[in-house]
């Protein structure tokens, strides 16, 4: 019974990600690549994404603090973040990245700073939502000892 309840909880959490548009169909595509040989594949992908994206976000936030900002360099970082966020289905993060890039293209420094702050907010929100989800999934997918 308890196991059924936990699985319902996992399913509800997952559905909420789509309902709140935190994730899009590319997350489902990732799930389709998961199999018995690699049951934690999606979590591993997101571990990789969070690790690399944290570094990129920190780099771009640091760049905003310097006096002379290389817009081209910043756009390169945002471009990379865009690609990886799109690939894992991180919809809200992707939306903020796209908005920030548009503002950056116009040379609007203050707008870019605000955009990066929004990106960070959505990114942290995504992490906060997915980490407990993966923990719950992993804790309840351990095969029973026979």
């Amino acid at each position, binding site marked *: 019974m308890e196991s059924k309840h936990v*699985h319902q909880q996992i*399913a509800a959490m997952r559905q909420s990600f789509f309902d709140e548009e935190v994730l899009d169909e590319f997350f*489902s*595509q990732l799930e389709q690549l998961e199999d018995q040989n690699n049951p934690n*594949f999606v979590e591993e992908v997101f571990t990789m994404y969070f690790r690399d994206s944290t570094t990129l976000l920190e780099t771009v936030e640091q760049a905003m603090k310097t006096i002379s900002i290389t817009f081209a360099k910043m756009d*390169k970082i945002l471009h990379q973040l*865009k*690609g990886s966020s*799109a*690939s894992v289905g991180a919809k809200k993060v992707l939306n903020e990245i796209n908005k920030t890039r548009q503002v950056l293209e116009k040379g609007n420094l203050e707008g870019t700073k605000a955009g990066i702050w929004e990106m960070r907010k959505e990114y942290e929100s995504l992490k906060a939502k997915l980490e407990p989800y993966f923990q719950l999934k992993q804790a309840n997918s351990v095969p029973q000892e026979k």
Partner: protein
Amino acid sequence: MAPTLPSGDQASDQDNWDNGRLARKRQLLTEIVLRNRLTALVVDGDTTCRVLEQLLLRSYEVQTQGVDNGRDAVALIASGVKFNLIIIDMILPVLNGLEATRQIRDMGVHCKMLGVTACSGESERQAFLAAGVDVFIEKPLDPEHLVPILRELDGQ
């Protein structure tokens, strides 16, 4: 709309989750059965994207290799390694994707090249096609774009 997990009364939720996942996986895998062993090179500076693209290809039993910059991609091709398919990003470390593509084509390599990039502007698209990619795809790479190309390469 993303698929929802069924919550049937008869089957357990675990059964439904497993069956739903299996059904989705079958749907993905039965899109194509390759007759020939195809090979692909994935050139992407971003680890997440490169790993995902390689895994997607491998799910169709395409043998893949990955490099994270344009210079290594050119060097690998120059060494004589042949691929049926090259998937390359536009913005790459060391040597960018446009230049890497030009150099690969200048070597006389005629294999299918897909420019898979986060760039979405028309000018970027034209530039990448002019450099020598056959198809321009905005990230992420998905089965909808990939499967027809694999079928074509497989002679189906």
